[in-house]
């Protein structure tokens, strides 16, 4: 079993089955992608892993520990962090504050300590600021600490979101369409950045992505979802040539027109 493992995960919304008996295993220190058409259940899976949704059936383990009954804050504290498809930064907070919020779980200061500004609190805060500034540099936003998040350009918002996720010192990072809205050059930079995360920080990466060039270029393993089911899994080459993937993801012309819905 890898760092993250889901077994027979099923999630329904009313009558709609968003995930259907999904088995997924993510190996430690791998870069693993989930692809599939819109509505295939990819983001739903992220929401289940991070505790935002609760699956009706099945289990999910992180480092061997079951996490499907934990609240999102507990799951984050265990070492899973994520970004969002449509960027969800704290818009009216500064970049630095966004990152500091990300550090919340491993800061210790209590509210009493904050009022009295005890030496421990002061030290804690000073270290946090230092680390936050380092993280900003890491994502290439040195000196932007005082900007409100909502005023950053699109690409920088994406990177700030990653920095915020890194601030919780995750072992597993879930990236939801990290290159959406980026041009090829920016996408390439992002790919390199994701590789650095894995190589330098040893973080396992699970990502959802539509940009095939990114997916094929970066992934070690690809899982293909369609209608909440896993229809294929393998290396980029295996997946690329899988006829079921081509059918589901790219669409073909089969002579089925006229068959009733």
């Amino acid at each position, binding site marked *: 079993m890898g760092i993250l493992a889901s077994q027979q995960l099923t999630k329904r919304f009313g009558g709609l089955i968003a995930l259907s008996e999904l088995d997924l295993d993510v190996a430690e220190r791998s870069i693993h992608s989930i692809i599939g058409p819109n509505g295939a259940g990819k983001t739903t899976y992220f929401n289940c892993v991070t505790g935002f949704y609760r699956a009706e059936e099945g289990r999910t383990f992180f480092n061997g520990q079951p996490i499907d009954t934990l609240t999102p804050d507990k799951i984050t504290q265990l070492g899973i962090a994520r970004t969002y498809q449509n960027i969800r930064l704290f818009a009216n907070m500064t970049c630095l504050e966004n990152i500091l919020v990300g550090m919340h779980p491993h800061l210790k200061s209590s509210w009493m300590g904050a009022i009295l500004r005890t030496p421990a609190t002061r030290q804690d805060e000073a270290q946090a600021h230092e680390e936050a500034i380092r993280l900003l540099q890491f994502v290439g936003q040195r000196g932007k600490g005082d900007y409100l998040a909502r005023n950053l350009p699109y690409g920088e918002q994406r990177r700030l979101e990653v920095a*915020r996720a890194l601030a919780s010192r995750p072992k597993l990072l879930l990236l939801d369409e990290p290159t959406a809205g980026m041009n090829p050059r920016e996408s390439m930079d992002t790919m390199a950045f994701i590789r650095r995360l894995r190589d330098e920080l040893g973080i396992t990466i699970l990502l959802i992505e539509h940009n095939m060039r990114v997916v094929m270029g970066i992934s070690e393993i690809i899982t293909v979802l369609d209608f909440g089911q896993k229809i294929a899994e393998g290396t980029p080459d295996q997946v690329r040539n899988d006829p079921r993937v081509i059918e589901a993801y790219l669409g073909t012309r089969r002579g089925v027109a006229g068959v009733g819905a």
Partner: protein
Amino acid sequence: MRSDRGSWGRVISGGLIFGAAAVFVSLVGMVEALGVRVIVIGVIDFGRLLLLLIGLGAGYQAARRGGGGVVIALLRGLLAGAATGAGLAALLVLGSEVNLRGMFINASPALFEIISFGRGAAGVPLVVAAGAVVGVLGAAATLLPGTVRGPLGAGVTATIVIGLFQELLQIILQGEEGVRAAIRQLIFVPEGLPPRGALEVFVVVLVASALWRSRRPVVRGWISKRPPRTQRLLRLLGLLLAVAVVLVLPAAGGLFVSQVLVLVGLYTLMGLGLNLEVGFAGLLDLGFVAFFAIGAYTVGLLTSTGQYGVAHWSFWAAVPVALVVSLIAGFLFGLPILRIRGDYLAIATLGFGEIIRLLALSDALRPWFGGSQGILAVPKPNIGGFEFSGPMQIFYITLVSSAFIAFVAARLRDSRLGRAWMAMREDEDVAEAMGINLINVKLLAYGIGGAFAGMGGAIFAALLGSIFPHSFNLLISINVLALIIVGGMGSLPGVVVGSLFLVGLPELLREFSDFRFLVYGAALIIMMQVKPAGLWPAAAVRRELLKEEPVGAVTEGPVAERAEA
């Protein structure tokens, strides 16, 4: 581009709207009632000033819209002013034909006397002409360059303010000799502000303002060139000066001013508490007065020497208990409503607040809380024989506790907890995904916010010496909410500014308390459209306002969209 005719039509309809406003303030009784306060003796009173300002506004507005040369602009002002006058003239005609007084209690002969310059229905042409003249003046104001208009406006405003508060200022400047008396005698006569004094004030402020305008960059430049230590020293000096002024205020201003200041202080305390809930943590709370009540009742019950007192403690012993009780009340209050969001939260908290008040008021709990008769004989606080007997003394308790609580709030804001609150305010789901335990953080917001208000309640009990459930109605919660929004959500200085504007100012104009909420309501509506970020926006917002385009301009986009929502 619209046709010329359409544009002139708009000038007239704009003028008529101002005319309607003039009719409104007349019928609602403001013109007559405010007429009691003479601003400049023999020249103008507050009521007439109001009508004058409406006329000026009409002209100003008309001239600002649409281009054209000087003559066209003045003509637009003339037309709009005349239309405004025509509105009042219509009221005049109507009032002389029909007995309006059967319905509108303020449609009195005295009102028509004021409007018609004492001529009755025959004054109609005069009213229209006066409107036109005032309109032209308003239009002329738009044509002046900023360097002239600014000081001119400052001069006029200062004259009005000094005239309006002449009584108060005369009290502050009392005495037979010395500097204060000299200033008083220079400006005022015992009855008020004479034309000569008004002119002096106007000229002095005009000149000072013009000088400041031209010298400001020089002064700023000089300061910025000093070494950092000197700069810090200067800032400290300024701060000390401000503190000194605040400290002598009650002594200088007398009982009435002290009373107003204590009220401002109490509202500041509550504002700081609610600001923590709404401004920091984004938890809308319309039942906030409940914590104020809990603080007051705790102190009342613990210290009262009357029927319902249970312990006869001293004020100082009771205050910490009140803080703890309201903190716990905050937790208990917060627990059931953790899951409720948005507007629903506002209504649920409103319900809670009302329940507390109604219970305190009821005969059912009378054996403990005194029902509608309240708790009497709450002793004044004292330290070693010095008794805080009245507002002039209690002011200092209020001041110290406000400063202390503002300090605590500032520390919390800049702490890990403060960031967690703000994250929750921005996006509750993501905040939780950042590892923040929403339950703890929410309960702390309710608890600490409640404790701040409880502090205010404790002082309130000592101030009045008695507690009545009627003091804790919904209007207080709404006032507090309004003041933090007017001040600027999430901004600590904003709370003080807000309570000065929404509590202090109306209290100073107490004799017009009939119109207090009317003006207040209009101010809230206008404020939300003109300056939704508040008079003193929170630091981060203010930085951005200076640097980037205004908040309103950010309309959509992944993050900006949620900022709006």
